[in-house]
């Protein structure tokens, strides 16, 4: 396995070649009983399991596959398994006209990204990798949505979109918390007081939906 390149660089180069025809190595995808019985499982199959991890405009290539050197690769694999099972079941429920959303495959942007990525330090690279790969579990989110709405049917796109929105919200929280820390000239891991302050600021900015009935006790 080629470990000399960064995983994202390797993925960028890989997508220019033809998609792999050979079945993926068995250790890459541990025991997927719900996957189709065929032996061949090309990249499109596997990329389907992690739509929100894929790079922009590269449908069918999962950057994490070719050189899985991530510290969280084990948990990412397990995540992918459960995601794939969910998607197979839920495809019939998609009613929305998804085709009206254009895809963004901008070669300029990708080239720029590549130059930036090539100059990352190891620390930055690992953080970027965590940023790209981390995601809230679709199954857990679906369970949460079902418990909130009380309805049993939550379509797949809704789950995916909510996971994406929640991830961005976490990003806003953490970034605001970091800026709170720099204002107070503190360093180290983020503490709950910073997060509370950051949440308060986000509320003032109007980025947090207000409850129509305020909750009395947390």
């Amino acid at each position, binding site marked *: 396995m080629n470990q000399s390149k960064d995983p994202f660089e390797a993925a960028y180069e890989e997508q220019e070649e033809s998609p792999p025809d050979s079945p993926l190595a068995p250790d890459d995808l541990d025991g997927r009983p719900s996957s189709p019985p065929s032996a061949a499982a090309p990249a499109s199959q596997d990329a389907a399991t992690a739509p929100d991890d894929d790079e922009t405009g590269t449908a069918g290539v999962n950057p994490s596959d070719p050189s899985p050197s991530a510290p969280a690769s084990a948990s990412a694999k397990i995540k992918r398994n459960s995601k794939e099972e969910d998607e197979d079941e839920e495809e019939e429920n998609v009613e929305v006209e998804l085709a009206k959303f254009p895809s963004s495959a901008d070669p300029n942007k990708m080239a720029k990204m590549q130059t930036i990525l090539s100059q990352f330090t190891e620390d930055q690279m690992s953080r970027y990798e965590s940023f790209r790969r981390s995601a809230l579990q679709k199954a857990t989110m679906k369970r949460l949505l079902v418990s909130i709405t009380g309805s049993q049917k939550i379509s797949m796109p809704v789950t995916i979109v*909510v996971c994406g929105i929640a991830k961005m919200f976490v990003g806003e*929280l953490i970034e605001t918390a*970091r800026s709170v820390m720099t204002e107070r000239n503190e360093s180290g891991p983020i503490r709950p007081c910073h997060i509370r302050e950051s949440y308060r600021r986000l509320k003032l900015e109007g980025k947090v939906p207000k409850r129509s009935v305020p909750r009395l006790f947390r």
Partner: protein
Amino acid sequence: MSSSGAAGQSAKPAKAGSSQPSETSVKRKRGMFQKDLQHMMYGFGDDPNPIPESVALVEDIVVEYVTDMVHKAQDIGSKRGKISIEDFLYLIRKDTPKLNRCTELLSMQEELKQARKAFDVDEEKLASLE
């Protein structure tokens, strides 16, 4: 202000027809998103090992956020028992980065669906050849 305690309680995923939104949060398991959130927080700028209380607090905030969003979507969009994507898109219309991300996710989903369909068709051809 004590953090909402649901320590050790078992999860009750389906509360059919519940009209008490605040109760759901007490019944859910602790640490629903814990592992994922740790990686996510690191990715967004926290320490490689975030403080557990911070992770728990972020999880509470996120669950509250999702709950409020879903309730708003239910109110706005439709009284038909289902939630539709359009409702969410309407909710975040003011927030440009989120809106862009959502359209990106949805278009990618569509592409992947097409790719998988193409794969299935090829599969059948291969099978019929043999």
